[in-house]
């Protein structure tokens, strides 16, 4: 019976990230529109868009290979697995032993690799530009992610997210290195999701576009799946920040249904706060030049390195 319950909880988490990620995008767009004194699309608009895309016919370029058709599903699968492994409302779920920070970085890296390949597959110049930029940013963002993972795992003594969250919740200390890790992770999250200072998610018309350039040739269900994967990537980073740095209200895996329900409520509140802050940040900054992005991500890498250094320093005190 407990086995069934565990399976149910894990499945609920997988369904939850799938259902909530377009809502997070919708909420962020809504807040942005409100801040710009527009009314904005309804909250469920990303879901409507996805369903509309699913109904439409797929238009393929003549020289698209099998890779081009397979890549969306690979990207979707890797992102969904990664997003479903991060503890959202409860720690220590059934598959949480695989929810390792390094494994998450690898899953996301695999998704990025296939997206870059798909961008170059058809041979339009836009796709090539997007892929080369994506790999340039990725080569800086991934080391920063790994450094931040080092900080967190050095402090918590484990790379498993469930244990990290449990440690952070039980043993609350203010540490300089944790502060650095948080800021670095926020920078990485903004860059990885192509939010405003790095890339504009709302337009196809910019010379500096990255993510949109790679998926310019996609249509129909392929595009729907990729968009859903992008939404889940944003949700993944939000839940990662929430579970490592703000582990309030996370239920234990053997908790009652009621506690799990509270966990879900807490999680949704965290998502709302994160979406609001993201919208606020996006409306208050301007997009930076593409060649400034390495500096921006370099700052995250630097914070990771400094934080790791400080972990050892504070140990020796």
């Amino acid at each position, binding site marked *: 019976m407990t086995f069934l319950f565990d399976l149910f909880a894990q499945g609920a988490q997988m369904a939850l990230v799938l259902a909530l990620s377009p809502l997070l995008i919708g909420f962020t767009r809504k807040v942005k529109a409100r801040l710009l004194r527009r009314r904005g699309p309804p909250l469920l608009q990303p879901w409507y868009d996805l369903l509309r895309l699913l109904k439409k016919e797929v238009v393929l370029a003549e020289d698209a290979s099998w890779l081009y058709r397979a890549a969306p599903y690979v990207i979707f699968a890797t992102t969904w697995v990664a997003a479903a492994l991060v503890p959202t409302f409860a720690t220590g779920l059934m598959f949480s032993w695989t929810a390792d920070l390094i494994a998450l970085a690898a899953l996301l890296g695999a998704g990025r690799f296939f997206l870059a390949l798909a961008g170059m597959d058809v041979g339009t110049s836009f796709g090539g530009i997007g892929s080369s930029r994506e790999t340039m940013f990725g080569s800086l963002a991934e080391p920063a992610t790994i450094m931040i993972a080092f900080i967190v795992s050095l402090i918590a003594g484990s790379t498993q997210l469930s244990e990290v969250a449990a440690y952070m919740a039980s043993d609350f*200390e*203010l*540490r*300089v290195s944790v*502060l*650095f890790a948080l*800021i670095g992770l926020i920078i990485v999250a903004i860059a990885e999701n192509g939010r405003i200072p790095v890339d504009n998610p709302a337009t196809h018309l910019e010379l500096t576009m990255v993510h949109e350039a790679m998926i310019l040739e996609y249509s129909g269900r392929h595009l729907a799946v990729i968009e859903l994967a992008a939404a889940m990537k944003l949700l993944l980073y939000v839940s990662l920040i929430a579970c490592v740095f703000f582990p309030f209200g996370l239920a234990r895996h053997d908790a009652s249904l009621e506690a799990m329900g509270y966990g879900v409520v807490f999680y949704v509140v965290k998502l709302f706060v994160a979406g609001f802050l993201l919208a606020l940040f996006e409306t208050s900054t301007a997009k930076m030049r593409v060649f400034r992005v*390495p*500096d921006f991500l*370099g*700052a995250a890498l*630097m*914070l990771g*390195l*400094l934080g790791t*250094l*400080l972990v050892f*320093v*504070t140990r*020796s*005190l």
Partner: protein
Amino acid sequence: MQHLSLDIAQVLAGGLVLVSFMLLYQDRLSGLINTFALHAVVLTLSVAWQAYVQNAPHLYLTAAIALIFKAAIIPFSLHAIVKRLRIHRTVEVVGGIGLTMFVGMFLMGLSLVVMLPATAAADPLAREDLAFALAIVLLGLLMMVTRRNAVSQIIGFMSLENGLILAAAGANGMPLVVEISVALSVLVAFIVIGIFLFRIRERFDTVDLFELDRVRGERQ
């Protein structure tokens, strides 16, 4: 409580180092001045926390001076001067931001390596603060070296001085901190105004927008 107070002091001092790095990262003058104001605010918080922990009322005065002078008056007047003199908005950086940040990281590591063994006898609160303070001083020096613009050099100098105040506040039994910080603030204000007017006059003559108008032939 002892542990938490140490944590808060560390986070504030570390935050000050972080803002020093933000100063190195900024390449626009208005952003630079705003970041400097933030630097002063974090310094104020840090010094005030030290005053609370050590029960040293005179440090509150130091914090107040930092807040009034460095977080309000100096940034405000710098903004006004930049606006009035129509200085070119970007800062030239020697060697690029990435390299500067890298050197800054090296300096941070250096100050930790030097300070922690040297102050092994002191209490942990002062040790950590001294290491961070040295890092801030070195980062301020780095900023003065890598920037060609007078405004950013002055900001680098003042952030250096913030590091000195942090070091003084972290060390116990320094009743002269207040006087010294007052004197330094006045001195800095003089240096700011002095260097500014002279350097600006000789360097930014040609960055005047009216000059550009004249070249385009819109005015005689």
